[in-house]
C-alpha cells in the first residue's frame, strides 16, 4: 500500500473502496433485491389470472398476449418516465414498470405450462370428481410448475438487470451508485456496482435453479421410465396430492417440461 491509495489514483479495482463504502454497497444491494423480489412476486400474482383468461379461447388470448408483448417493446427509460405522472419519484414507479415487463415472460410461461397438461389427465381428474377450482390448483398447476418456474427464473434475471434503470428516479438499487459515478468518472464504483449486479443475477439464477429441482424432481427422472411411477408418486405427495393416477402424472410432467424449454 505504498504511495497513494487506489481511491486517489482512481483505479478500476479498489479494495479500499469496497471496505470503506461497504455500508453504501450493502444498502444498494438490499434495495436492488427487494425491488426485484417484489416486482417478480406481483408479476406472478397478476400473470396467473391473465394466463387463465388467455386460456379461455382465442378471443381473450390475442389481446392478453398482444398487450403484454407490446409492453415489452417499450424502452425501459420511456416506461419509467410514462409512469412518472401516476407515481411520482417513488419505488412503486420502478416496481410497476418492472411488473409490466415481467408479465410478458410470466404470462407466456404459465400459459404454456397449463396448455401442456394432457387432456386425459384432466379427464381422469374430472372423472374422479374434481371441480374446476380443485382441478386447477391440485392437478394443472403442479403439472405446469416446471414451465412456470422457468418463467420466474428468466423474469428474475432480466428484472435484476432492468432495476438499474430505476436510478433515473433515484430508486435503482445498485444503479443508484452507477449513475453519479459516471459523471464523476469514479471507475471503482462503476465497476464494483456493475459486478455486484451481475453476481446478483447469477446468484438468483442458481438459487431458482435449485428451487426448480427441489420442487419438480420428476422432470429429471423422465429418462428413467421404470422409476417414473415412484418418483411421480413422491412428487404427487409434495404437490398436495395432485392426481393419484401415478402414470398420468408422469406423462403430464414430461409434457410440461418439454413446454418449459420452448417457453424459455
Amino acid at each position, binding site marked *: 500500500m505504498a504511495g497513494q491509495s487506489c481511491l486517489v489514483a482512481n483505479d478500476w479495482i479498489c479494495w479500499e473502496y469496497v471496505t470503506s463504502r461497504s455500508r453504501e454497497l450493502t444498502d444498494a444491494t438490499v434495495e436492488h433485491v427487494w425491488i426485484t423480489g417484489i416486482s417478480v412476486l406481483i408479476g406472478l400474482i397478476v400473470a396467473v389470472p391473465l394466463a387463465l383468461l388467455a386460456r379461455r379461447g382465442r378471443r381473450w388470448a390475442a389481446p392478453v398476449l398482444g398487450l403484454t408483448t407490446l409492453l415489452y417493446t417499450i424502452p425501459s*427509460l420511456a416506461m419509467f418516465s410514462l409512469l412518472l405522472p401516476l407515481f411520482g419519484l417513488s419505488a412503486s414507479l420502478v416496481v410497476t414498470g418492472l411488473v409490466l415487463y415481467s408479465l410478458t415472460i410470466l404470462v407466456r410461461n404459465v400459459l404454456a405450462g397449463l396448455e401442456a397438461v394432457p387432456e386425459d389427465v384432466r379427464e381422469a381428474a374430472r372423472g374422479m370428481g374434481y371441480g374446476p377450482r380443485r382441478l386447477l390448483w391440485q392437478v394443472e398447476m403442479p403439472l405446469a410448475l416446471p414451465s412456470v418456474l422457468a418463467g420466474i427464473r428468466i423474469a428474475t434475471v432480466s428484472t*435484476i438487470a432492468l432495476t438499474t434503470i430505476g436510478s433515473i428516479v433515484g430508486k435503482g438499487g445498485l444503479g443508484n451508485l452507477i449513475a453519479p459515478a459516471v459523471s464523476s468518472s469514479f471507475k471503482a464504483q462503476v465497476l464494483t456496482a456493475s459486478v455486484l449486479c451481475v453476481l446478483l443475477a447469477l446468484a438468483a439464477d442458481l438459487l431458482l435453479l435449485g428451487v426448480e429441482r427441489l420442487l419438480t424432481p420428476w422432470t429429471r427422472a423422465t429418462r428413467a421410465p421404470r422409476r417414473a411411477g415412484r418418483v411421480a408418486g413422491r412428487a404427487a405427495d409434495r404437490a398436495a396430492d395432485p392426481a393419484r393416477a401415478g402414470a398420468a402424472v408422469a406423462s403430464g410432467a414430461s409434457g410440461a417440461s418439454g413446454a418449459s424449454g420452448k417457453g424459455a
Partner: protein
Amino acid sequence: MDVLSGAWDWLADGANWAGENGVWHRLAEHVYVSGVALAIACALALPVGLWLGHLGKGGALAVNISNVGRAIPVFAVLALFMVSPLRGWGNVPTIVALVLFALPPLLTNAYVGMREVDRSVVEAARGMGMSGGQLFLRVELPLARALVMTGVRSAAVQVIATATIAAMVGQGGLGRIITAGFNTYNTAQVFAGALLVALLALVVEGALVAADRLLPRRPAPADR
C-alpha cells in the same frame, strides 16, 4: 390530466423540435446510432450463427450467450464504457454497447432457425446430390428465414431501447429529451420524450413485422 396536455403543448411547440437539443436532431442521432449498430451486429452474428447451425455445432454456446446477455445490465455496460478511454470517441461507446446487446438474439435465432429445419428435408437434399453450399443456400436458408427474421426484429427493438438508455450516461439519442426533462424538473417534457421513444420503438417493431410479411415467402414451415 395536466401532464398530458403539458406534454402535448411541449410537442406542439416548434421550438422544441429545432436545434441541437431538439427532437429532430435527437431522433436523427438515435436512428443513426441504432442503424449502424444493427448493421454491424448482423454482419457479425448472422454468418456465424447460420454457419454454426449448418454445421450443427456450438448449440450450447448459442443458448448460453443469450442467457448471459439477459443478466448483464445495459446501463452498467454503458457506464463502464463511459469511464474508460472510449469516452472521448463520440458515439462509439453507445454503438459498441448496442452491438453487444444485439448479438445474442441474432446468434441464437440464426442458429436455432438452421437447426429446426426438418432433418428429413436436409437428408433428401443430400440424397439428391446437393453440395454443402447448395444445401445451405437453397434449402436451409429459405426454411430458416422466419426464425432468423424474428431474431433481427428482436435485435432491432433491443437496439432502439438500448439507444435510449445511452442518454443516462450523457450520450445522444431521443433519451436525452427525457433526461433533460428530469434535470429541469419538467415533467411535461419527460412525458413527451417518453411518448416519442415508445412511439419510435412501436413503429420500428410494426415496420419490421410488415416488412417480413411483404417479403416474398417461399414454401416455408408454418409460422409459430
